[in-house]
Structure formats: structure tokens, C-alpha cells
């Protein structure tokens, strides 16, 4: 009955098979809902030439910024990368390539990747630099771009609670890109706050069914806050 016990005991096991020049999809929005321990493990492994698909690229010294420090990232596919001085530096020096994708298009490209849809049409980006090189097509009198699906060799996903089947739920807005990332990795690794017994999660409330998940590791999270704003700061 070991087939569905996806829990691994070490970060090394969790990312076993990750090698240079692979594509890694990372859940998270800014520093919210990121697989902190898995990112740190990639840094320890020193894997280079990575294409990283993530809405953002962390900040200097935290999150995916850690991988920039060691120049492990060759290319980022993101919607917003403005929080990181090291990013800017590597981009300007030509060490780093970036493919900017509108946030909703990025989310949908990942969903499509997981759902076996190779391409779809969206009005987002028509008439903008994002449209360059893409097929434009009219439906019902409006123009749309054809956008392609994204899949990755690995997906690193941060969840709140998971069972050994890999069924999981996300906490509050730490959900963000994680459910799509989970579906789009050839190997999907879940780093979770808490492991629960099968049956504890209500079947209809599970965000990501275990079928998408290959490995589960219980992590420890710092959960750094990017912009702490209090109700007293503004009326």
C-alpha cells in the first residue's frame, strides 16, 4: 500500500532528479505562498541554467532571489519582476533573460499546460508589445492573441495542509498560482505546513487533488511579509 504514500523525508529526496537546464514552475505571489524550503534546496543543489516560471522572482536574499544570488536562473517567465535589484543587474548584464507575460495569461497558460490544452485565445495584450510574434485572430468582431501552454519538469508548490495522497488545501491568498503550478509539473513537489490523515480534508474542499502531486514534504516557513500595512497607517 505504498503507492499513494507520497511523503518524503528530506529535501534532497523531494527534488531528486532536478538537473541543469530544466524548467521549474514555482507557485506564489511575491513572497506569499512560496515553497521556501524547496527553493533553498535548489540553491544548495547549485543547479544552473534553470528556466523558472513564477509570477515574481522574490526579493534580494529571499524566495527566488536566492537563486539569482548564485546565478542559477537562465530565464524567467513572469508578469512582474520589479522587487529585486539583483534581477535588474543580471538582466542588464545579459546573464538573465526574461519573458514578460500578463499575469492572467500566465495563470491560464499554466492551467492549460496542466489541462492538456496546447493553446488558447485571449484579448489580453492585443495591440501591445506582448502581441509580437503571436497569431492574432478575430472572433465575433474582436481580436485575440493565441497563447501557448506552459509545462515544467518540476513544479514547486506551497500548501497549507496535505495528506499522504497529496490532496491539499491552501491558506487564504497563499493559494494564488499554486494550484495551476501543481497541475503543470511533470514532477510536482508539495511543501506543506501540516500533514494530515487521509479523510481529514473535506473531499469537496480540496483545492488540489492528489493526482497532480508526486511528492510531499513537511516544511518550516518563515513567511516573510513584503509590505506590512496596518489599518492605522491610513484611514
Amino acid at each position: 500500500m505504498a503507492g499513494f504514500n507520497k511523503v518524503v523525508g528530506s529535501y534532497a529526496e523531494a527534488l531528486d532528479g532536478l538537473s541543469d537546464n530544466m524548467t521549474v514552475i514555482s507557485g506564489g505571489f511575491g513572497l506569499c505562498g512560496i515553497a521556501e524550503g524547496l527553493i533553498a534546496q535548489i540553491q544548495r543543489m547549485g543547479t544552473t541554467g534553470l528556466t523558472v516560471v513564477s509570477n515574481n522572482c522574490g526579493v534580494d536574499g529571499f524566495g527566488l532571489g536566492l537563486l539569482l544570488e548564485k546565478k542559477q536562473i537562465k530565464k524567467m517567465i513572469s508578469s512582474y519582476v520589479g522587487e529585486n535589484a539583483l534581477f535588474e543587474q543580471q538582466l542588464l548584464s545579459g546573464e538573465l533573460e526574461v519573458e514578460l507575460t500578463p499575469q492572467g495569461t500566465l495563470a491560464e497558460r499554466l492551467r492549460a499546460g496542466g489541462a492538456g490544452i496546447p493553446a488558447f485565445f485571449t484579448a489580453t495584450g492585443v495591440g501591445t508589445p506582448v502581441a509580437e510574434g503571436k497569431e492574432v485572430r478575430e472572433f465575433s468582431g474582436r481580436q485575440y492573441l493565441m497563447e501557448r501552454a506552459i509545462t515544467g519538469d518540476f513544479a514547486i508548490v506551497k500548501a497549507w495542509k496535505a495528506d499522504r495522497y497529496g490532496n491539499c488545501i491552501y491558506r487564504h491568498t497563499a493559494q494564488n498560482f499554486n494550484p495551476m503550478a501543481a497541475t503543470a509539473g511533470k514532477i510536482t513537489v508539495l511543501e506543506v505546513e501540516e500533514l494530515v490523515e487521509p479523510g481529514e480534508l473535506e473531499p469537496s474542499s480540496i483545492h488540489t487533488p492528489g493526482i497532480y502531486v508526486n511528492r510531499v514534504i513537511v516544511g518550516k516557513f518563515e513567511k516573510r511579509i513584503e509590505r506590512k500595512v496596518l489599518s492605522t497607517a491610513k484611514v
Partner: protein
Amino acid sequence: MALNREQIAKRVAQEFYDGAYINLGIGIPTLAANYVPKNMEVMLQSENGLLGMGPYPTETQVDADMINAGKETVTAATGASIFSSAESFAMIRGGHVDLTVLGAFEVDIHGNIASWMIPGKLIKGMGGAMDLVAGARNIIVTMTHADKHGNSKLLSDCTLPLTGVNCINKIITDLAVLEVKEGAFHLLERAPGVSTEEIISKTAGKLIVTANVPEMQV
């Protein structure tokens, strides 16, 4: 006199209506949430996956797992729902958000908007702005009428790379409220004490002005 940030935000809030689902961009648009009229209920959508954004948290409410699209700590209002980024943009792209208010560098008479990229400066990315202008039912831009050098930001044709084409319906600036239609800006209101002449002089794109343009109520 030109409106200050709070006054612009107040004028923006006059576009809200009871039962509206609204996405507010960073800056002045977000500030408008403070001026929702009493006896009116609107629901704020934050594109990172929150419908029903509440006020900023108290120190004890702060939660790293509860942020808005500006990556600021927030709370969830009663009746909120939380979902994935794909679901959030399905909502936006599918035209379910009633109103989006966002800032811009330039807007033109064709309803085009440029708001994300200044060539020569570092490109930070468009985030969700392109999806928002392509998807929302009604889009309002709020910005200063001219840049700090006095150059008009309401043009015949945007000069910067675009965020979206033919999508802006209304512009609320520190000087005026304008509608964009039929290849021209139409002056609807002027800031208290600001002359029609000043607005004309600071609007580079074609501007239609009718007699007796009313003053904004802010």
C-alpha cells in the same frame, strides 16, 4: 485649482455604485476605497485571488498569507471569497468585474492606454494590468492631466508601448473628468476653479468642449 490626491480619489469614488464589483489599481485608485459613500456596498476584487477585500489589518490581524495584489497585508470582508490566480483572471477576462480603476502614463483619443513601460528605463512587467484593461466592463483611468514638465498625458496617439487598445471609457485627472469616445476626449467636468481654457491648453489630443462645463463636486 488642481485637485490633490484625496480629492481625485473622492471623485473616483463617485463612479462607484451599490452592488458593484470593482478592481482598484495601486495608488490613487486604492485610496478611493476610503470614500465609498455610506449606504453603498461595493466589493473589491484583488487580482491575486481575493473578492471582498477588507481594510488593512490591525497589528494582531496581520497575516502573511493574506495580502492584496500590491503585496500589502489586508483583511477579508464578510462575504469574501478566495481563489486561485486562474480563477481570478477568469473573472476579470470574462467581463465579470464591473469597474476597473487604474493609473496610466498616457491615454489617447482612441481609448488606448500606456501604463507599464518606459523604454530606456528598466522594464518591471505589466502584472495584471493588461488583463484588467482587456477584461473589465468599464475602465476608468485616473492620473494627473500633465506630467511634471507640463506635458499633456492626454494625447492623439500614445507614444509609449501600450497596455491595451480602445479600452478606456473615462479619465479622471486633477483638472477634469473626460469621456473617451468617437476619436476624441469629451470634457464632462472641470476641477473647481479650473478654467476650460487651462484644460484645453493641457490636452494634446482632440478635445470636445460644450458650453457650461460643470464643476466637479468633491
